[in-house]
């Protein structure tokens, strides 16, 4: 069977017309742009080697110290720890679904954009999001410049997803969330829900989906009622709703 598959794919080729149209398109798009000297690109591997040597030569702490985090909440709840070079150092699940998803991924040392894209496109999350579940991404960290850039990238990454929200958070607030065993997205929802239902516990919130949390908050809010369809960017009641990328109060 291996050989049959290989031979069948071998029959599929790019036609000359397609190649020519691609060349014409590239010529049109790049007209007037000078080609970069090849030498500059040849230097890149050398510079990369020097960087590696510098890192191995005593600066490894620079690489392996997380400077930002990206929390992803749907119901799998995950946290990506990011270093100052925008690389993923670790992926941690914050509930059973999150741990299962984290175990199925191998994005360590990836650029965070590629990693988040791969996570959102994973079979688990793409199926949940297609089913109308709510996605919350929270960015936190000590470096405001880096966090601003990550938040902006996350907004671009989720642009077009009607049921996604992106937030920035202070590192202290994220630490408070982690003390309760929650990602920051769930923690915010927990605080909003607790204001309406003092009996709710972090353990209860941990395994609820963001959509369930949102619907419960809306139901308990004065005059609120849970929506049945996909949400827009409405508030969640009780002052919980925010615009895209709104900073943490």
């Amino acid at each position, binding site marked *: 069977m291996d050989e049959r*598959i290989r031979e069948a794919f071998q029959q599929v080729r790019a036609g000359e017309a*397609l190649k020519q149209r691609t060349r014409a398109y590239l010529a049109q798009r790049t007209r007037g742009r000078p080609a970069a000297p090849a030498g500059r690109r040849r230097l890149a591997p050398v510079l990369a080697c020097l960087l590696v040597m510098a890192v191995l030569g005593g600066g490894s702490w620079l690489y392996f110290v997380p400077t930002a985090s990206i929390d992803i909440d749907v119901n799998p709840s995950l946290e990506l720890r990011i270093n100052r070079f925008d690389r993923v150092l670790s992926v941690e699940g914050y509930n059973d679904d999150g741990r299962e998803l984290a175990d199925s991924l191998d994005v360590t040392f990836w650029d965070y954009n590629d990693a988040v894209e791969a996570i959102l496109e994973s079979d688990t999350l793409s199926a949940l999001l297609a089913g109308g579940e709510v996605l919350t991404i929270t960015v936190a960290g000590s470096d405001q410049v880096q966090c601003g850039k990550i938040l902006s990238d996350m907004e671009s990454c989720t642009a077009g997803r009607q049921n996604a929200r992106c937030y920035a958070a202070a590192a202290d607030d994220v630490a408070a969330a982690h003390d309760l065993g929650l990602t920051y997205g769930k923690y915010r929802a927990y605080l909003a829900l607790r204001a309406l239902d003092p009996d709710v516990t972090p353990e209860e919130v941990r395994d609820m989906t963001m959509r369930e949390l949102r619907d419960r908050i809306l139901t308990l809010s004065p005059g609120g009622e849970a929506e049945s369809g996909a949400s827009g960017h409405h508030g969640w009641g009780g002052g919980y709703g925010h615009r895209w990328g709104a900073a943490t109060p």
Partner: protein
Amino acid sequence: MRSEQEVDTAIERYADMVRRLCMVHLKNEADTEDIFQTVFLKYVLSSAAFESPEHEKAWFIRVTINACRDLLRSIFRRRTVSLDEVLETPAPADPDHREVLEAVLSLPGKYRDVVYLHYYEGYTAPQIGRLLGKNVNTVYTLLTRAKQLLRERLGGDGGNG
């Protein structure tokens, strides 16, 4: 920006592979042409320095798969089409090739990348895991299940892969 000669070389070297990845993901020729433009324009403008031909090939695979996924996310692009359209007319003349491609394309989307990368490009499960950002055990599971499904559709022993 890369020179015209570099781009020509890349098109000759990778156009067939990009075309096959497009076939695995996309529905028609217009979408395939969009992907060709996106992928090779990214290459032209990219300043990435490749350590080896394998590194460059892996870059093309990842960029092509990501571009296909981005395109498919646009709900306006989603529509059902016949296999003839997927394969672009004329379809492969050999009935066996056609039957095999029909079987591969009828697999759920999550299996098709790994089938192509393993059976045609010869990547191992760990290599596919690194390319697609999936855990290697997940890739083994996908390959095993894909092999079962293909065996059901095509008969045979499932090969040694």
